[in-house]
């Protein structure tokens, strides 16, 4: 192995392993084919280009580091966070119900009913489908989930049963937004680490909410989220 090839291989280590397995040898061949006959080491321009592209690929912000790339990188972790939030809301929604005159931050307002559980179920299903189909139908399933979120509140008001909390619905829509806004070319690799971070962030958010809920129900503390909001306190 020549000094030049060794130097290129060292630079290619900036790329994540999964990318090197797909493209490493191909890029190395291109670099060596384009090298000058007497070239002993990479030029500064080559080194910078490989490091920038490799680092961008490693952190998942897309090939040009643009907003589109950032949206693409954030879409899956955010969607997983939405899935965790919806799962917890689905499981605890009934238990954490805040009826009229009830002090505390229930995940569902008013009398128990089907609207909120169905909405949370749609979100859970959307996230499961996204992971299972490796993002193939991401835009479609998230669009349906966001549409369900938008119509859930007026429908719940109409039937008067199980109105989901506005802050939960708003958070779910926010978590789904990057999946709808990102360009198709950012659909690429699903990395487990950022998705895990997204799930843990949602759990941390819920833990913070639960602490606020305990404080509110005890009468002595103040909830951390939406304190004073009619949606938070129960209508």
């Amino acid at each position, binding site marked *: 192995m020549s000094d030049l090839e060794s130097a290129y291989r060292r630079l290619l280590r900036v790329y994540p392993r999964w990318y090197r397995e797909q*493209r490493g*040898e*191909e890029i*190395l061949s*291109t670099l060596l084919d384009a090298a000058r006959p007497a070239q002993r080491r990479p030029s500064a321009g080559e080194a910078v*280009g490989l490091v*920038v592209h490799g680092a961008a690929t490693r952190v998942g912000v*897309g*090939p040009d580091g643009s907003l589109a790339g950032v949206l693409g990188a954030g879409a899956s972790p955010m969607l997983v966070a939405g899935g965790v939030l919806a799962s917890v809301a689905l499981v605890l929604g009934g238990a954490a119900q805040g009826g009229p005159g009830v002090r505390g931050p229930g995940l569902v307002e008013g009398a128990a009913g089907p609207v909120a559980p169905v909405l949370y179920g749609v979100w859970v299903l959307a996230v499961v489908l996204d992971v299972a189909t490796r993002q193939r139908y991401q835009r479609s399933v998230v669009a349906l989930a966001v549409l369900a979120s938008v119509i859930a509140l007026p429908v719940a008001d109409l039937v008067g049963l199980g109105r989901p909390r506005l802050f939960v619905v708003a958070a779910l829509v926010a978590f789904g937004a990057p999946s709808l806004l990102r360009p198709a*070319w950012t659909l690429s690799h699903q990395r487990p680490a950022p998705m895990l971070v997204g799930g843990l962030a949602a759990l941390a958010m819920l833990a913070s909410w639960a602490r606020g809920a305990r404080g509110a129900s005890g009468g002595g503390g103040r909830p951390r989220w939406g304190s004073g909001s009619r949606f938070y306190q129960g209508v």
Partner: protein
Amino acid sequence: MERLSGGRLRLRAGTLYAALDRLVAEEIVEPAGEEVVGGRLRRYYRLSGKGRALLGAEAERRAAVSGEALRRLAARPGLA
């Protein structure tokens, strides 16, 4: 690329593969086989049907703009 552009455009490998990743993801280009030459992997790409249509439309648009510019310059030679 450098030869085709008369030396005006020089594409580094990092930039080239960033663009290639995007073009493949958008299905504008597609893999067209690979071979091992001198112990090195070479992978080839070609325009897809979608890419051909896009490139044709863009080339026609640019040709129309260039044609209009040349027509206006010819009509008012004093500006050239």
